[in-house]
């Protein structure tokens, strides 16, 4: 799309600047040169304009993104701590191997991501398919299911979650109606992470909306053709809907995995910033915050940040590699 765009744009001045056949007469070269000169000034004006339009973004890119990124990489080889620091080589990275809390935080983050993302996307897909039937009141249902994902990132919701899954919280009150004595879910090391996973699944609304948009794109004629061929409901779902939806599933998967590796707020609030109980909700991001901003081991925290980036990059790359085997892109798109 963007390539086309560029090609179209470029072809214009070229065709006007150099007329196809050089005319037989003598005065041909002169106007050509003159025209090219005008073209150059226009182009350079355009470049200056582009630079001025881009300058806030460019400054931001250098000062707020790329610069700090380079600095962060450098810091990860120092023992920097607000104001002073020395080069320590690979020490921060070696330290990771004998840091049980780091190992725990990688484990917690991995479990969180690999359990919550499939559940969340499954729920999103299921509801999208149900809502796509064009029932009356569909937009109302869509709003209801979407609302939690809009609110889910806020501190207020994390506070609510903490109470809902507390010892005397809403869940246990409801369980008590059936005579079941529930645990204090958020304060039990075996269940605390589960409540956060549930919170993530609860916010399936935004992938659901992406799925809905994807379902709209599937031409009805495919279903009609399948029907003529005698395909049943399940068959049509498996052979038509799913393959055509795989690019959207893939897109959501990449995005949600990247996002959930970076989750912070909910775990921070539910565990009062400590990642407890017994480090069972110590996300990598929480550990990074603890090292960098409460203990001010900023060198080590930078190394943790690069570990996080490496993990995300590896899983995103794996995702793309694996996509060859299951993502279906139409032949003539």
């Amino acid at each position, binding site marked *: 799309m963007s390539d086309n765009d560029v090609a179209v744009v470029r072809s214009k001045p070229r065709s006007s600047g150099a007329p196809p056949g050089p005319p037989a007469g003598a005065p041909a070269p002169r106007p050509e040169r003159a025209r090219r000169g005008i073209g150059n000034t226009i182009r350079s004006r355009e470049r200056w304009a582009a630079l001025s339009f881009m300058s806030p973004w460019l400054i931001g890119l250098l000062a707020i993104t790329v610069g700090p990124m380079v600095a962060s990489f450098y810091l990860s080889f120092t023992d920097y701590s607000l104001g002073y620091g020395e080069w320590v080589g690979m020490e921060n990275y070696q330290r990771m191997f004998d840091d049980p809390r780091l190992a725990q935080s990688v484990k917690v983050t991995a479990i969180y991501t690999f359990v919550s993302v499939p559940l969340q996307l499954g729920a999103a897909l299921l509801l999208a398919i149900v809502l796509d039937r064009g029932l009356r009141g569909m937009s109302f249902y869509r709003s209801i299911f979407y609302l939690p994902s809009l609110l889910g990132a*806020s501190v207020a919701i994390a*506070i*609510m979650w903490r109470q809902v899954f507390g010892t*005397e919280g*809403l869940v246990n009150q409801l369980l008590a109606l059936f005579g079941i004595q529930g645990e204090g879910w958020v304060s039990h090391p075996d269940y605390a992470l589960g409540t956060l996973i549930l919170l993530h699944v609860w916010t399936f609304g935004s992938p659901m909306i*992406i799925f809905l948009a994807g379902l709209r794109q599937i031409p*009805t004629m495919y279903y009609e053709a399948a029907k003529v061929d005698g395909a049943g409901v399940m068959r*049509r779902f498996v052979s038509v809907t799913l393959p055509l939806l795989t690019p959207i599933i893939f897109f959501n998967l990449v995005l949600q995995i990247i996002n959930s590796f970076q989750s*912070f707020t909910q775990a921070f609030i539910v565990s009062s910033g400590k990642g407890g109980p017994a480090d069972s909700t110590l996300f990598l991001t929480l550990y990074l915050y603890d090292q960098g901003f409460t203990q001010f081991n900023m060198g080590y925290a930078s190394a943790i940040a690069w570990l996080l980036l490496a993990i995300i990059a590896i899983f995103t790359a794996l995702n793309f590699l694996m996509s060859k085997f299951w993502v279906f892109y139409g032949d003539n798109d």
Partner: protein
Amino acid sequence: MATTTKTRPQAPARRSSERSAVSGGLKRFVFHLVLIIAGLVMIYPLLWMLSASFKPLDEIFSDPGLIPSTWEWSNYSEGWNALPHPFEKYIFNSMILVAGSIVGNLVSCSMAAYAFARLRFPMRGMLFAVMLGTIMLPIHVVIIPQYILFNNLGWVDTFWPLIVPKLLATDAFFVFLMVQFIRGLPRELDEAASIDGCGYWGTYLRIIMPLCMPALATTAIFTFIWTWNDFYSQLIYLRDVDLQTVPLALRLFMDSTGTTNWGALFAMSIVALGPIFGFFLAGQRYLVRGIATTGIK
């Protein structure tokens, strides 16, 4: 949930010819029933929190229902004044951040987007790819040097570290959103403007921006919600109690008195969710479009 397997996964063309109206009606009824139950399960915690914000304390821990036995409006007044500052102070601080972020994003992101979508310049393709890459870059990778930078500038415990990046279009997601939108506008408009003597800035201000209103609205709404909800960077940069925002105030509330006064804490949580809910009701069209066209929440 079992009913979903029986659905026809097909949107528009529905023919009820083969089936009798009665069984179709029944099926539809079951569908609505399942959806209503699922929807209720989804939002029940929210409704319950709303009702709990009016409940006396002992009832919060004993009544899973939605109707308070007595309406404790005092939860709200207590919560409002439970912290070092009255709650409007935190709302005010959050609003400053929100306003600065919205202005910053609208101006800087639309400028960069216009250049990417309409102007020719060297390395455009590469810079565009870099821009897309920064959308995915985890904030955690840059937050420490950013903190050191802003600390050296003396900006920690001011609003600058939270607003200046927006003025520099670091929310690249919105640049992307607007590039997509501007590409959809007919180029003939630009050409007509240029023939009429409009320069690049004139075209940007008088042609592109007015036509970009839907994308600008999406940007403004998302910026509002993200800034209002943002906790991580505010936690890092705003430690001064005079500068604390709504999310920080809630956290402070919960860690200090919250566990003994859930009613008041819930009341302030409802206050914190209110504006987002308002935008959800008013701007849903833009939100849904923003998600559906770019795929990022």
